[in-house]
């Protein structure tokens, strides 16, 4: 039985950013440089979300100079200023680890778009590879 999570409730974000596995996102990371603080962007595809409550984390994968780079972020960390969704994708899995073995055309995903009722549905055309840089 969970008797401890209520004690850290106040350390959680009141409005955690909303996004899902398969989304292409911009993660706004607060970075301390000397005594100045600035926000750095990390853009890529959300591969997976793990754990629950205050320990919840998500993994973002992007391609930097042809090399795959993954970073794991805690959702509730104050260092994560914001997560902006750039594109939603239609995916069949909760963990997109298969993307690690793919690149280019085989790493495409169909975009999820809003239909006239505001429901998210799979779009028509297959999308270009996400988050190239």
């Amino acid at each position, binding site marked *: 039985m969970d008797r401890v999570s209520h004690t850290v409730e106040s350390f959680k974000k009141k409005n955690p950013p909303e996004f899902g596995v398969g989304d292409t996102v911009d993660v706004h990371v607060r970075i301390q440089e000397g005594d100045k603080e600035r926000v750095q962007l990390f853009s890529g595809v959300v591969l997976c979300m793990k754990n629950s409550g205050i320990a919840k984390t998500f993994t973002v994968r992007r391609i930097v100079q042809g090399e795959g780079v993954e970073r794991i972020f805690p959702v509730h960390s*104050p260092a994560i200023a914001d997560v902006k969704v750039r594109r939603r994708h239609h995916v069949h899995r909760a963990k997109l680890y298969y993307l690690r073995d793919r690149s280019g055309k085989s790493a495409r995903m169909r975009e999820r778009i809003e239909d006239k009722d505001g429901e998210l549905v799979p779009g028509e055309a297959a999308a270009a590879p996400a988050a190239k840089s």
Partner: protein
Amino acid sequence: MADAVPGKAILARKEGMTQLFDEKGQVVPVTVLKAGPCVVTQVKTPENDGYHALQVGFIDQKPRRLAKPQRVEAEKRKVAAKRILREIRLAAPADRKVGDEIKCDVFQVGDFVDVVGHTKGRGFTGVMRAWNFGHKPRSRGNMNVRGPGSIGMRTWPGRILKGKRMATQWGGERVTVKNLRVMAVQVESNSLLVKGAVPGTDDGVVYVQLARSTRPAKSS
């Protein structure tokens, strides 16, 4: 128990571990302790007992479940029946009287505390688990792969050196974890969140006191 100079000490129950974030956004592992409320059941004085101390009770108990000496004593002092009685040694006369409550707000965020508890009992364990010995190759004809191997020399010295690490009873002993930082104090739920791990099982009773290293030096 050692003398807590400012009397900053409390009994607590380990609730379990979780995590929180510090001001930099870094994850901090914390142990949640249900600290108190403890009730003062007796004030010890040099005149009566030879030293300053508070006797405190923790965790309510039906009076009939207590042994008669504790039950009668509780009735005599008109304090609630408590399952656990411990002493908090003091260097100076106590500023509390019988019946007073001690709550987790004796500590503040940023304080360092020492936590005394009993570790989980592991039973009789072999050398690999108890002392991190390696094992012999599991193939190539070895049979007793988890054994200690050689434990000494030959006719000289003709004995096993004292303190030789062997299979042993492990755990279930009193351990003090020093200098854990208090990360949060939540009076409404009697929760004390300290950074790091604390000995014992969930629900185990521990003694929390202001860290020795941060206490003022004893003047005499």
